[in-house]
C-alpha cells in the first residue's frame, strides 16, 4: 500500500472550511425540492431541475472535492501546493459564491448571474488548477493516486470550461452551438473529475478506514488512464453507444470496491462502510439505467432515476461516509502532538446520530426514486434531504467544536 505523509498536511482549517460549507448546499437542495418540487420533476431540463443538479454538483460535491484535494495532494502524493492557506481563501469563497450565482441563474434565468457565476468559478479554477497542476507534475513518482489525481484535475478544468461556455450561451453572450457539449460536460464532471477522484481517494482510504485488502494493482494502475480514454472516445464518436466503455469502467470500479468490502477483516459495520456499500450498489444500478437509456429503453423517467442513483446515491453517499472519517481524523491528528489526553476519535462524533443519518439518507433516495414515477413523493425526498443536511452539518460542527475545546483547554491561560 502507498505510504502517506501527514507531516506535509496543510493546517486543518484549509480542508475543513470547504467541508463545513458543503452541507449548506445540500440543505438548499432540499429546500428547493420543497419549494419547487413539481417543476423539478417535470423535466431534467427545467430551470428548477438544472438548479437542483448544480446545487449538488457545483455546490455540495465541488466543495468537498476541493477540500479533499487540498488535503490529499500533499498527504497522498507528496504534491505540495503553493501556500495552501493563502490559496484556500479565494478558491473557497469564489467557488461557493459562483455556485450560488449559477443556481440563481438557472432558477431565475438571469443573464448577469450566469456571467457572475462564470467569472467567480472561472477565477476559482484559474487560481486552483494551475497551482495543483504545478504541484502534481513537479512531484516525481508514478503512484496510482498521483496519476489519478492528475487526470481528475485535468477533467475538472475541462468540466468547468465546457460548463462556462454553456452558461455564456444561455446568457446570450455566445452562440447556442456550444450547448451541444452537455453530454461531454456530464461525462467529464461525473466520471472524469468525480469518479476518478473518488478512486484516487478510495485506493488509500478504503483499505485504511474499512480494513479491506488493497485495490488490485492491475486495477489501480489502469483505471484512471482507461477512464480518460473512454471519456475521449465518447466525446469524439458522435454515437451514444460510444459511452458504453465508460459506463462499463464505472461499473467495474463499483464492483471492485464491493469485492474489497466483502473481504474486510472486521465484522462490525460502521456508518462509513454502510454509506460506501450503499453508494456502490446505487452506482451499479445507475450504470444499468444508463445502458438502457443509450438503447432508448425506459422512457422519460429513466434519466431522472439514473441522475438520482449516480449523484445522490453514488456521490452524496460516498462523500457523507468519507466526511465522517476524515474530518475527525484530520483534527485528531492535529491535536495529538499539541494536547495531552486528546478525546478518542470515536467520541468526537455521535455514532448514534451518524447511523440515523445513514437511515434517513437511504429513505431519502428511495423517496427521490419514487418521485420519478409519482412526483408528489418529491416533498418527502426534500424534507429528508433537509434532515440529512442538518444531521451531517451538525455532526461536523460537533467534531470541530470538540477539537476547539480540547485545544483551548490545553493552552496555558
Amino acid at each position: 500500500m502507498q505510504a502517506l505523509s501527514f507531516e506535509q498536511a496543510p493546517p486543518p482549517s484549509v480542508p475543513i472550511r470547504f467541508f463545513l460549507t458543503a452541507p449548506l448546499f445540500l440543505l438548499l437542495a432540499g429546500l428547493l425540492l420543497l419549494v419547487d418540487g413539481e417543476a423539478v420533476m417535470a423535466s431534467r431540463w427545467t430551470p428548477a431541475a438544472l438548479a437542483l443538479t448544480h446545487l449538488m454538483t457545483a455546490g455540495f460535491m465541488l466543495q468537498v472535492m476541493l477540500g479533499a484535494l487540498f488535503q490529499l495532494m500533499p498527504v497522498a502524493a507528496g504534491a505540495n501546493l503553493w501556500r495552501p492557506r493563502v490559496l484556500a481563501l479565494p478558491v473557497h469563497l469564489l467557488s461557493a459564491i459562483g455556485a450560488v450565482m449559477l443556481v440563481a441563474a438557472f432558477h431565475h434565468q438571469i443573464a448577469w448571474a450566469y456571467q457572475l457565476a462564470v467569472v467567480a468559478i472561472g477565477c476559482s479554477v484559474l487560481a486552483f488548477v494551475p497551482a495543483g497542476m504545478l504541484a502534481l507534475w513537479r512531484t516525481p513518482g508514478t503512484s496510482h493516486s498521483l496519476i489519478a489525481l492528475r487526470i481528475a484535475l485535468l477533467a475538472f478544468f475541462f468540466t468547468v470550461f465546457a460548463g462556462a461556455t454553456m452558461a455564456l450561451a444561455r446568457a446570450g453572450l455566445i452562440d447556442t452551438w456550444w450547448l451541444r457539449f452537455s453530454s461531454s460536460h456530464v461525462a467529464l464532471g461525473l466520471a472524469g473529475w468525480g469518479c476518478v477522484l473518488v478512486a484516487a481517494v478510495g485506493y488509500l482510504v478504503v483499505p485504511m478506514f474499512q480494513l479491506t485488502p488493497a485495490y488490485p494493482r492491475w486495477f489501480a494502475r489502469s483505471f484512471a488512464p482507461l477512464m480518460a480514454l473512454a471519456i475521449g472516445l465518447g466525446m469524439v464518436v458522435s454515437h451514444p453507444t460510444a459511452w458504453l466503455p465508460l459506463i462499463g469502467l464505472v461499473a467495474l470500479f463499483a464492483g471492485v470496491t464491493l469485492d474489497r468490502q466483502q473481504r474486510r477483516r472486521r465484522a462490525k459495520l460502521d456508518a462509513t462502510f454502510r454509506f460506501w456499500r450503499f453508494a456502490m450498489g446505487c452506482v451499479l444500478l445507475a450504470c444499468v439505467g444508463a445502458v438502457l437509456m443509450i438503447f432508448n429503453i425506459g422512457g422519460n423517467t429513466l434519466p431522472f432515476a439514473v441522475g438520482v442513483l449516480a449523484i445522490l446515491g453514488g456521490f452524496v453517499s460516498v462523500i457523507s461516509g468519507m466526511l465522517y472519517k476524515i474530518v475527525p481524523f484530520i483534527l485528531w491528528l492535529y491535536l495529538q502532538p499539541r494536547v495531552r489526553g486528546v478525546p478518542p476519535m470515536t467520541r468526537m462524533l455521535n455514532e448514534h446520530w451518524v447511523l440515523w443519518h445513514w437511515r434517513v439518507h437511504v429513505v431519502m433516495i428511495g423517496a427521490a426514486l419514487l418521485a420519478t414515477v409519482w412526483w408528489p413523493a418529491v416533498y418527502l425526498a426534500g424534507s429528508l434531504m433537509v434532515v440529512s443536511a442538518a444531521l451531517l452539518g451538525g455532526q461536523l460542527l460537533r467534531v470541530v467544536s470538540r477539537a476547539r475545546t480540547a485545544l483551548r483547554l490545553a493552552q496555558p491561560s
Partner: protein
Amino acid sequence: MTDRLPPIVVDARRLLPPEPMERTLEALDEMQPGQEVLLMIPRQPAPLFDMLRNNGYAYTVEPQPDGVFHITIRQASGD
C-alpha cells in the same frame, strides 16, 4: 547480565485508525528502559512514523508474507 523484558505487543490488525496509534502511544508510556513495543498492523502507519521521529523513538519495519507489517519501536537513545 539482565534478561531483556519481552516486548509489549499491540495487535492492531483489526483496529480502525486512529486506534492503533492510540494503543501504541499507551504502550510507549508503559515501556520500561530497554524494552520494545511490537506493533502488528496491516499498513504502514505514516502519522505514527512522523510522531515517533519527532519524539525520539527509533523503529524498524518488517513486512510479513500475509501483508501485515511488524513495527518494532524503541527509545532512539538506547541504540
